[in-house]
């Protein structure tokens, strides 16, 4: 049943957030540190482990996949509920940061693909 997948997802989400909360308290910060990242790692590793054993029914998987297709719509709703008026006072920041940071990452691609070819040859 699809709800099993949703349940697994909910478990990963909550465990990740508990870890993130714990980490936050450890550093005396209000809020969650990397809870989403932990939850994703738990799901990736769990998925990998149980897929090898063929233990995930397609319907269960569909319960999780449904939510991954909801990711863009949820992000659309999120962007529609931001304080854009206030953000526009610093509008150039967004454009300059977005483009320059991307170009910085682009420049590293040839360097790292050379490295990976060396790594593969070894």
């Amino acid at each position, binding site marked *: 049943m699809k709800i099993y997948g949703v349940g697994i997802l909910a478990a990963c989400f909550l465990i990740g957030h508990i870890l993130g909360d714990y980490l936050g308290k450890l550093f005396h*910060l209000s809020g969650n540190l990397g809870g989403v990242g932990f939850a994703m790692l738990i799901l990736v590793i769990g998925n990998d482990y149980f897929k090898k054993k063929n233990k995930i029914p397609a319907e269960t998987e569909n319960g999780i996949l449904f939510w991954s297709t909801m990711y863009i719509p949820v992000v659309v709703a999120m962007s529609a509920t931001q304080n854009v008026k206030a953000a526009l006072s610093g509008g150039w920041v967004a454009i300059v940061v977005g483009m320059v940071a991307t170009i910085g990452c*682009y420049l590293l691609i040839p360097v790292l693909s050379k490295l990976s070819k060396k790594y593969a040859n070894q």
Partner: protein
Amino acid sequence: MNDIIKLLDKNGLVFAFLIVSVIMYASYYIGKKLTNNKIPGAAIAISVGLIIAYFGGDKGVASIPAFSGMAILGGTMLRDFSIVSTAMGASFTEIKKTGFIGLLCLVLGTLVAFIIGGAIAYLMGYQDAKSITTIGAGACTFIVGPVTGAAVGASSAVIAISIAVGVIKSIFVTISTPFLAKKLGIDNPQTAMIFGGLVGSTSGVSAGLAATDTKLVPYGALTATFHTAMGCLLCPSILYFIVHSFLP
């Protein structure tokens, strides 16, 4: 009219489903017909979201009566829940094939975007640790920005900038990838994975690769998915502490 507004407010989440689906339909239609898939529907839809948020208040469009449900659909809980689910699209075995270099890409991509983003933010007048960290995180992806902003307690205005940064990155990646692919050597799975891991923006990478060579899409998207996790892990923790140790 008042009765309708009351009804929509009472059933806010359901109304939000309707609004977002209409935005998505219109955006994907525009992306396909008017821009010939050069700008991904997702990037247009997110931009439409930011534009309509402009007409609202401090909660964006959710500040307008009848639209309050958008705050539930776009709130932290459902947002994080759906982001975690995208990890299903990534396989640990696949990334192990790229081995050490793959991990290096994820860390380097996050660091480079964060440092460049944070430095520009600092030069343009944002000089507190919370804002610099959030804008630097936005330079990773439009997910890492708000997740980090919420964790470190940045203002809603700065979180909105970090989303805008991520959206601009996504649009820029989508448009420029097909033109730069040859120069950057993105013509094999290995380089596509390096590209995804370094650049990160999942929607930009998958749309950009789709316009370059559809066979490369899963490889780029795979590492791009991990990039968001890496950003969510590093930005609000280690990177924030480093920035915080230099600035208030």
